[in-house]
């Protein structure tokens, strides 16, 4: 950990490059960070509200679009963060082969850059909701520690995945389908409470549900009752991070041979 602190400038330099990498040479620049989620949001609202006319009783007077938006940005931060983090070591193979530095910084920089970009978009969404949809309660501040834990979960998954990716080149092929299934298994487009009992019980085991649901409940209703599932998921996240980092650090001396 002390060695990581000594490398903080390198981390910041890598982070800065990661953020800039997204938009270097592009015309739209940061606009793209907001266009993609907005487009998804538009499609989901169109499909579920206009075409299928889905009614979610738990929403009360809150609009469907706000309901989805509050979950979509954290989800995208997680998904994109893990996907970019998994690629991070391999994408920087020139550095790994020639320069001595803690390889985990590459993963942290990639995931952090994604969270910075997506959560900036999320802040914008919250601001708009605060201005046009009747304001937010002070409870919204509780979102911050929960998102921090979500960030930690993304780091853990990315550490584990990026180490595997170095050895098994087709690992990232798995991620696309995996995230597609996970997206529908996570209560982004629906609340867990809407599900029939048995399905809700199963999906409650999805740790992501225990991040998305409280964040949305806090932002939308200003209240949320902690469940055993949620507390267990958060504890598991800490444990998972420690394990994934151990896995990564054990394999990282061998990256140079394989990237």
């Amino acid at each position, binding site marked *: 950990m002390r060695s990581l602190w000594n490398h903080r*400038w*390198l981390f*910041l*330099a*890598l982070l*800065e*490059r990661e953020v*800039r*990498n997204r938009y*270097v*040479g592009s015309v739209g620049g940061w606009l793209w960070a907001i266009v993609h989620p907005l487009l998804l949001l538009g499609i989901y609202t169109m499909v579920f509200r206009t075409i299928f006319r889905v009614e979610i009783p738990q929403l009360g007077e809150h609009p469907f679009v706000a309901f989805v938006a509050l979950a979509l940005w954290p989800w995208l931060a997680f998904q994109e963060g893990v996907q970019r983090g998994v690629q991070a070591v391999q994408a920087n193979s*020139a*550095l790994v*082969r*020639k*320069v*001595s*530095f803690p390889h985990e910084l590459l993963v942290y920089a990639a995931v952090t850059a994604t969270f910075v970009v997506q959560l900036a978009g999320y802040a914008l969404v919250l601001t708009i909701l605060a201005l046009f949809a009747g304001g937010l309660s002070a409870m919204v501040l509780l979102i911050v520690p929960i998102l921090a834990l979500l960030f930690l979960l993304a780091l853990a998954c990315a550490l584990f995945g990026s180490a*595997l990716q170095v*050895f*098994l*080149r*087709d690992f990232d092929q798995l991620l696309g389908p995996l995230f597609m299934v996970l997206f529908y298994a996570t209560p982004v487009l629906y609340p867990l409470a809407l599900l029939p009992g048995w399905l809700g019980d199963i999906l409650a085991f999805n740790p992501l549900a225990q991040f998305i649901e409280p964040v949305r409940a806090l932002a939308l209703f200003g209240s949320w009752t902690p469940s055993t599932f949620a507390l267990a998921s958060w504890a598991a996240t800490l444990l998972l991070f420690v394990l994934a980092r151990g*896995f990564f650090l*054990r*394999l990282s*001396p*061998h990256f*140079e*041979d*394989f990237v």
Partner: protein
Amino acid sequence: MAQLPLIRLAGVGKEYPLAASGGDRLRTLWQLWRGRRATHVFRALSDISLELHRGQSLGLIGENGAGKSTLMKIIAGVVDPTQGTVERHGRIGALLELGAGFHPDYTGRENVFLAAALLGLTRAETTARLDDILAFADIGEHIEQPIKHYSSGMVVRLGFAIATTMKPDLLITDEVLAVGDESFQKKCSAWIEGYLADGGTLMLCSHSMYHIQKLCQKAAWIHEGRLFCHGDSADVTREYLAYHEERAQGDRPAGGSAQPGGLYALRNLRLNGASAQAPLALPMASDLHVSGSIHSPDGRVPGIAVGVVKADGTPIYGLVSDMDGYRPRAVDAQTYAFELTFPALPLLPGRYYIRAHAMDPEGLRLYDQLSCRLDITGSARELGMCRLAHVWGEGVDADCAVDERG
């Protein structure tokens, strides 16, 4: 603490897992994760023990694939050894590839910051040294252009410039001097000499024995993954060159990379009949006879190239036997002798080298090189290197025919 070596390697060995197919990689992953050694390995290094103290300079030499790069990576901390231990005390600046941290889409200036961070500089330190870096790299306006528009020489200049401002305790470089143009090579050499004079420690990997002898006190010869020879750089490089000469002559059957029948090689080089070992002192305007014999593995008539250079390497004159249609005389089936005379050699007093290379019969490839020191004695008040034939005339009025001169 001052007594501690900067680097101490004890019994260092390195194995690389051999894994080609996906299944192999999966199995290797499993073995490495469990902390086992991989079953199929390539042994790159065995049992290397070395110490490098502050203020020393060590040259690493060896054939391609001998394990030099792996050893440098281990010392730099890019990879961990499979066996043995590495101790490092002090700040190490490793330039295993100049510009490894550069991103092609960013400008030179933007790239400086990440590259410097990789060498351990903080942002504030980099900002403070930016002017020095840009001055050393001396690439002018290009610093604002994306790196992808740079020539490889410019990338190297910028990469080395960053390292020069970092002032590491130990500088590790891999063939830095092989790239970059003449003036930049001189600049780098001068910087390294200054760095060594200030007590810096250097580890240089090079195929240029000239650079090793010039910049390193000690040399380590890595042969097939082992430390074959370690000591004074002049001794080690001489052994190394001798090994290559012998190998080229086919005396040593070991090693499979020699061409069939060996290579054309210069056996010896004499100035005015004296052996090349001692420098020849020659009064100005005396005759110079350059002679020697050439080994021809296939018995065909080889060529010979002879050059005269100033002590700093500035070329003065060079010629190839082929140009004049000269054919060395056969001594036996595989040996040819030559002699070249420069009557009344017009060099001014100073130190020069006569260099000669064996060439193939087609006059296309240079093989080895031998060189002899030549000290021209006497005194002359003229300037330059060489006395040009000249005649002073009566002189005419400057307004008239300029074309009369010459």
